């Protein structure tokens, strides 16, 4: 089994709802964006096209971050999800330099959004985070363990995201990749990302 995600760029309207719900689900501190949406313009007037591209950890099958991690804090679950054991991380940030997708964040110190003290939401949510370590998207693993989809998938209002097993040839994600020409970012680096994009 290898969990993966397909993001349909034709359906994505760039509302950044996935980014917001990721923050809400994972209570990430300021400056830590496990999921972000970038806008990309191409072409020349009057043939200009603007598309929104959601970016998050690609959960590569051959993750360069895992290879360089000196402590084994970065590891891969049997289902393909690349995760970080915060208790093992020393905060050397080598994985940040190795990730070609720049999807890892270092939490130098715990900061709060609106005041010097944490809000009640942050008090609860920050129990999952540590200072001085690196963090990133884990496909909402706690939700998966409860039989739910990742928060970004469940809350995408245009259903641009599909989540499933890439190893299963009859799964929805495999079909989409096959039928709609799904592509990966920087395939030439040999990382084999588990996130595929469908062309706009």
């Amino acid at each position: 089994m290898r969990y993966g995600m397909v993001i349909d760029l034709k359906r994505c309207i760039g509302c950044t709802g996935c980014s917001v719900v990721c923050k809400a689900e994972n209570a990430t501190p300021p400056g830590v964006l496990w999921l972000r949406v970038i806008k990309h313009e191409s072409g020349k007037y009057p043939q200009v096209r603007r598309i929104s591209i959601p970016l998050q950890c690609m959960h590569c099958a051959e993750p360069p971050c895992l290879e360089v991690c000196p402590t084994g804090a970065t590891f891969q679950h049997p289902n393909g999800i690349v995760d970080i054991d915060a208790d093992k991380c020393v905060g050397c940030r080598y994985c940040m330099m190795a990730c070609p997708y720049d999807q890892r964040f270092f939490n130098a110190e715990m900061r709060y959004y609106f005041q010097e003290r944490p809000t009640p939401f942050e008090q609860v949510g920050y129990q999952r985070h540590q200072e001085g370590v690196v963090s990133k998207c884990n496909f909402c693993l706690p939700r998966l363990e409860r039989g739910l989809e990742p928060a970004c998938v469940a809350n995408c209002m245009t259903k641009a995201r599909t989540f499933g097993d890439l190893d299963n040839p009859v799964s929805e994600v495999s079909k989409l990749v096959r039928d709609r020409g799904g592509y990966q970012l920087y395939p030439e680096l040999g990382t084999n990302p588990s996130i595929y994009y469908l062309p706009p």
Partner: protein
Amino acid sequence: MPNVSFESRVSRLELRPETSNPKPETRINDLRERFRPQREWAEGRGLLLILAHFLTGAGAGAWIFSMLFGFTPGLVAGFFLVVFGALAHFFFLGRPERFWRMLTGFGSSWISRGLVGMSLFMAAAFVYLLLWFFAARQTSLEQIFFALSLLGALWVVVYKGFVWASSKGIPLWNTPLVPALYISYALRGGAAVLMVLGSLVTQHAALGPLEPLKLWLAVSTAVLVLIYLEVMRGSGMTALRSVDLMLFGRVALPFYLGAVLVGLVIPIAIGGLAYARTVPPELLGLLGLLSLLGDLSIIYCIAKAGLYRPLPA
């Protein structure tokens, strides 16, 4: 919840003092850039990593040359430089108290391999110095620690470049030329430490053969820097952008002033003069000092000019 206006909340967030690392606001702004700069290894506490690589490289290089020339002050200086470098490494970590965990990734991580090499060097060099100063010399025990410390020093000289070169996210570093450059700079740094010490102590006559060697190292390093920049200019648009940052952008000042002028041009000029005629040891000491500043500058410039690949591809 206290009644605080939105404006004051925002201004409080922005006016918080600069912490030891790039601010979250800076990171958010960087994410909007097409070519995003890496800051974690070049700003705030990241400067400690640059200092660490400089100190360990120069220290290990000094140890190797000191063994070659039998120069005792160089052995002591080399050992302490590596120790200070290791301390800088330690305090760079986000969670230094867990540093021992870094020994576990020896199979795949160059940082882990570096820690093993540094530990081997520091332990062997410490025992060797104790034997050198307080016990009989030329014993088999001393020979064993001589070999072990030399192995550790070579390890320290070699591993650093591979740490940078194995960073797939930064095309400027992800090239086999970087290890060659770092090895060259570490050896050059070691020779420079000896020249500085040679100008301060009376033993400098023992370092005579070092002068042409230092000139050769300076010239070969300059050539290697040129080759590196030229190769990286043709290694994709991100690497080209990084080289442009070094040559014309925000890293140009430390590059031209520190790495080129102070680190290469002046040392080569003084080295050439020393090769042609006798110069006072103080001038050679100055050459070594400038050379060391140049070494620190080039490590900083390469780190600072690192950019991530643009997204989308």
